[in-house]
């Protein structure tokens, strides 16, 4: 059902964990299935220097979390904001149709964390 890439990210997720002094934190819940994802960002000079995630969800949720952190790391905020759910799913070699919604969590959580960072900056 899942591609090898998905299973690889599920089995060896990149960037799991928390950043205690994160510059931005985003948490989203998936209204479709009730899963939860939290992303922590460390941002320096407009660039994502470090990123970590924690996820409560299915295989696709964990794999997309892992993939999105890998894709976002080192990118500028503007570039990271361009990352779409679709791009994450594609980077994993696709998801089963029933599981496409899982990829929403990943990009949404990333964007929520960036939003949080920007809100703090504007204060």
């Amino acid at each position, binding site marked *: 059902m899942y591609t090898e890439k998905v*299973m690889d990210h599920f089995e060896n997720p990149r960037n799991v964990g928390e950043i205690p002094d994160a510059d931005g934190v985003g948490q989203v819940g998936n209204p479709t299935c009730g*899963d939860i994802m*939290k992303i922590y960002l460390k941002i320096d000079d407009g660039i994502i220097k470090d990123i970590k995630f924690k996820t409560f969800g299915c295989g696709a949720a964990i794999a997309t979390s892992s993939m999105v952190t890998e894709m976002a790391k080192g990118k500028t905020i503007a570039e990271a904001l361009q990352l779409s759910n679709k791009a994450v799913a594609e980077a994993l070699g696709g998801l089963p149709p029933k599981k496409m919604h899982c990829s929403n969590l990943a990009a949404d959580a990333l964007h929520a964390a960036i939003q949080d960072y920007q809100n703090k900056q504007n204060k």
Partner: protein
Amino acid sequence: MRRVYFDHSATTPVRPEVAEEMQKYLTEYFGNPTSLHYFGRQVRKAVEEAREKVANAIGARPEEVVFTSGGTESDNMAIHGIAMINKNRGNHIITSAVEHHAVLNTVKALGKQGFTVTILPVDKYGMVSLDDLANAITDKTILISIMHASNEVGTIQPIKDMAAMAREKGIFFHTDAVQSMGKIPVNVDELGVDLLTVSGHKIYGPKGVGALYIRKGTRWRQTLFHGGAQERLRRAGTENVPGIIGLGKACELAARDLEKEAAHLAGLRDKLIKEVMDKIPHVQLTGHPTMRLPNHASFCFEFIEGESMLLSMDMKGVAASSGSACTSGSLEPSHVLLAMGIPHELAHGSIRITLGRDNTEEDIDYFMEIMPPIVERLRAMSPLDQE
């Protein structure tokens, strides 16, 4: 890699004795049982012998057994057939919130066609209460359908008492015995039911075949299929002969081995439940602690999600199932767990281990070796586990 199959509520392997009998009815004895000639007569005889075996296994008479394409068809056929033929007598149907979708969705569909439907709640163990049933019955009630044992949490319902209540009021009683067959005694007279559903592939028989028991004198008629006059007008379509032969043999063996099997399974199940509860923190047993199928252990693991557990177990060779939203087609957690009052979040972490005749203590030991690290790893990833 060691492979451990712990998903016997989903389906079972066909026993070699069963497969062997079936094989002959694919190639050698291939006639249509309706045919008058030699090729047909041979097969007719075998089909009737299979019917006797199914009848014997549930304490019925052969002519009360109709062969179907499986548990789903039997459930649909039982409920729709009673409803349509008795609607002049009343339009009220009672079922429970923990039924299989083959029953629940059939009853709900009738609810949109002029029938009034009561869906009884269950307690935290998944048990229907006799009082609730007694209160739900009206003089319009024509049918009660309550499952014998739950596929999801293993809870065994007090069918005998409920069926007696129905009998007293002249209400037909159907029970889905798909999961109880071969694990606890199933006898239509002792249970006192009018209709009872059997499925082949849950009792080491083939997929795609089942049976419906219809007590003699029950006001039921075939209302789903039209066609030939097979099964004495109770089920149109050329009989699934190899399937029927397999079902017959599987029923015979299930009845013969019941006691031995149940003891074997209960021993393994008790060991499994004890070890999981002792060695893994933040786990809850779901279903009834004692009134449960001997092969059934189901849990909710806090803070983590079922599918990710299943995938991790699968990578270690262990096959089980889950009622989590992510594994269900509908992206809602199991209706059974929700009906038992388990919160969404917890239901998300459900795992069902259903044991079978080939499982051993070593399988359980292996499971207890791989499971704690899986739970730990996933909990470390979870935003919910705050410890």
